[in-house]
């Protein structure tokens, strides 16, 4: 299993969104779906199948882990599994955001953006 942060980069867009959503707080499956669609303005609406494929992958690569029960949830959430960001996940997320920031700020990127702007 890769432990070097840069082996995980670049992140797939959906993976990035999930990690971002978990950076705020621990969430269960439907919570993740809601957070991602809110954050992307409904551009990404996950179906249960793909959601858990991504979760499975992130669990396998040790970027997220199962959290214990979330005491702040009401009784309806009792059976639900919550997920949290691992320390490795946090570092990977930070590195990815850093990479994206540098990409957006690069002179070449800005030049292209200016040229293609309407």
């Amino acid at each position: 299993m890769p432990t070097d942060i840069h082996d995980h980069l670049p992140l797939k867009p959906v993976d990035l969104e999930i990690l971002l959503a978990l950076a705020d707080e621990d969430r269960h499956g439907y919570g993740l779906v809601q957070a991602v669609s809110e954050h992307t303005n409904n551009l990404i609406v996950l179906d249960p199948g793909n959601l858990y494929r991504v979760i499975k992958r992130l669990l396998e690569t040790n970027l997220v882990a199962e959290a214990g029960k979330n005491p702040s949830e009401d009784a309806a959430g009792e059976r639900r599994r919550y997920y949290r960001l691992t320390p490795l996940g946090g570092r990977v997320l930070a590195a990815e955001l850093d990479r994206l920031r540098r990409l957006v700020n690069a002179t070449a990127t800005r030049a292209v953006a200016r040229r293609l702007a309407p």
Partner: protein
Amino acid sequence: MTRTSAPRAFHWLLALFPKAFREVYGADMSDVFVDQLRATRARSGRAGVMRLWLRTSLRMTAAAMSERRAARATRRGRLPLFDDLVTDLRLTRRSLLHSPLFTVVAVGALSLGVGAVATIFSSMNAIVLRPLPGTTDGSRLVGIDRRTPDWSEGVSASYNFYRYMSDRAKSLEDVAVWSRVPLTIAAGDQNLAVGGNIVSPNYFDVLGVRPAAGRFFATDTSHPEPVVVVSHRFWQSRLAANPDAVGQTVTLNGRPYRLIGVAAEGFSGVFTPLRVDAWVTSSAQPHIKPSRDLADAPWLWMFGRLAGGTNSDRARTELAGLTAAWAAPGGSDTFPRYSDIRLVPLTGLPDDARKAILGFGGMLLGAAVLVLMIAGANVSSLFAARATTKQREMGLRTALGARRGRLVRQLLTESLTVFGLGACGGVLVAWAATSALERLPIPGDTGLFLELSPDLRVCAFAVMVSLVAGLAFGLGPALRGASHSPGGLLRASSRGSSGRRSRLTKTLIVGQLAGSLVLLAVAGVFIRALSHGSTVDIGFSVDNVSTAAFTTESYGFDEPQGKRFFTDLRRRLESGPGVTHVSFSNFIPLGATASGTTISVNGARTAVRSAITDTGYFATLGIPLLAGRDFATYDTATAPKVAVVNDTFAAEVWPNGSAVGNSFAMGEDRVTVVGVVRSIKHSTLDEADGPFAYFPMSQRWQSGQTVFVRTTPGSTGAAEAIRAAVREAAPHVPVPTVTTLADETTFAVFPQRVAAIVTGVLGASGLLLASAGLYGVLAFVVSTRSREIGVRMALGARPSDVLQMVVRDGLRMAGIGVVIGLAGAAAATRVASAYLLGARAFDIPTFAAVAVILFVVAGLASYLPARRAASTDPLNALRAE
């Protein structure tokens, strides 16, 4: 708080995932989906839920495929065929979403085609194919039908015959009998007329029907008190589904019965189109049906459940032997002629009606298949046109090393996906169409009702049909799409379609046009038949006559009381405003009933159709009396027996001389003919006149009679007058349903009406598809020929020349289509001729009219692309190269 579990369909989606994945995440996935469903329903209603289902099922399927592939890859290498399928599906999805117009048009066309076939199949399935609703293991139920050895005539079972069979038949687990009885149930201060069945106590057990509440009849036959079972529908609508109603006493035909149970939801007796709301046991016969007996009177329908390990053939052999022994001379049986037995599947209709509907439905199914073929050809040419535009992609992939088989498979996956979506659309179309058909009013007071909606069997059928069509129409374009040498394809540009392909496409269009012409011609011929039907001389006058049916037995009246009721009713009605004639009969000509009897003249036995009528019947219906007299009040029960016969009867039996004064034997009686009337149409509009005999109500009592009230033209309120007269004559008699004779007699043309509507809709759909196809092909041809058109115009061709050229191209195809279609129509209308009421099958005006319609539509479909071609700017067209 307990959580809602996900719908069953979602579990099917989960089942697509590998087991290991499902075990870990299945429950969580369900939870997420349930939450999504709830949120979507709250936010965007049912439309949103539909979209969510569609999106989720597509994505979940794709996700499951990917997950399976990943799981397999980590376990033991890859499975090429499966991986390819995943890739193909992904490519298909991308390519279909990429050209939404194509997808929508193709799926729409197929939905129409598959929907047409599924609608007809669904209706046939509901009426004649599926086992009785509400029963258990209905496929092992058989109707037992006593017939003459050549099966041409049948007779109902007597109770003695039933007992005999029940005691001896080894190949049947059990046997039961039933018969129809009109019943009157007291509900509050009002009496209701309901359809009822009188049944052997084991009836529900043999059918395997379960009670929705309470229990069914005990089979020890010794009920201490009369009991009744009601239908689920009656329980819900009249008893407010109150569980306490079970065990209460209800008044049935004037006497108290204990309501012991409610039948399973959806169960409506053995003949499903007849509404049945109450069941009583055979032990109630002396009260409910005093005119029959539990001995030798033939009035019961028999059915049984095949014993385990037997099949219908073996059972038939055994039962036929038993019947022959029962009918043997010297035995106790009164119907020795009916010495054979026939077993028929118990699917909700008498066997003769079942056969007729199968034939009729088969014809309509043929028409629907034609629509499906038109749709298939349409989509096939869409695929072909698309393949032309995808030539470059295919060429590139071949050049990069893709094998031909791979490309064929991908293209075929694409067609099958489109056809699969068409199947789903087709089921939706069928669902909508059958609910429209259910609402089609059945004429007259027949008590018939239909439930046609699709079940799982119909869905499976639609998928199968779509798959077959997908292979038949999708394989061709797929093979051709992948059959080019890469060099040629990469070089080829928009210079024009290859001759062979465009010929094939044109052939498909011609086929579509021909097919829709056939459909339109059949629809036209049915419409002709309907209008022809209205001009047939039926021999009696239906205008200004109102009718209402009564069964005095079900009001608890014995014979004298019944007669008094009818006399009283008649007296009250005759004094009503605008009433000119009143009479009774047990028979409505051209209605849904029929009756007959056997007479013997000079020792020779013949079957004649017959009716029982009151005095004044011929005057009420306007049937001319040709000789002798009508029945009169002095033809009493004790007076010499008399009859009135029709002119066909008179001419056949007494060809030389007058029938009046002659006599024939009927049972024990000697019957004298006192009058001759003109023949009328009795059951169908195209029947030949047959012998018919009328007997006076005063000499042959029957408790079921219809009143006929003729009023002066323009007077209204006959219905209210009849209801008021009934109320005054006997307040507890249920309010009758009043219809008009005109309504009742349209039952005779009901099949033609259905056929005209169904084939008309099918024909219009076919024409729509064919003209859309024609339009599409011409538009495509025009776009590929833009360079040629540009050159022509540069060389001096006027826009009108170009317009003509393209329209001529379209009309030429229409012309060929019309010629082929007319030949097909001549053959197809011949098949339909059995239902045409004597209208000509090969009807030149109809054929000419539909040919004109086709030409006009084809002209329009060609004009639009032609106009675009004519407005081509030659410079642009040439520069585009």
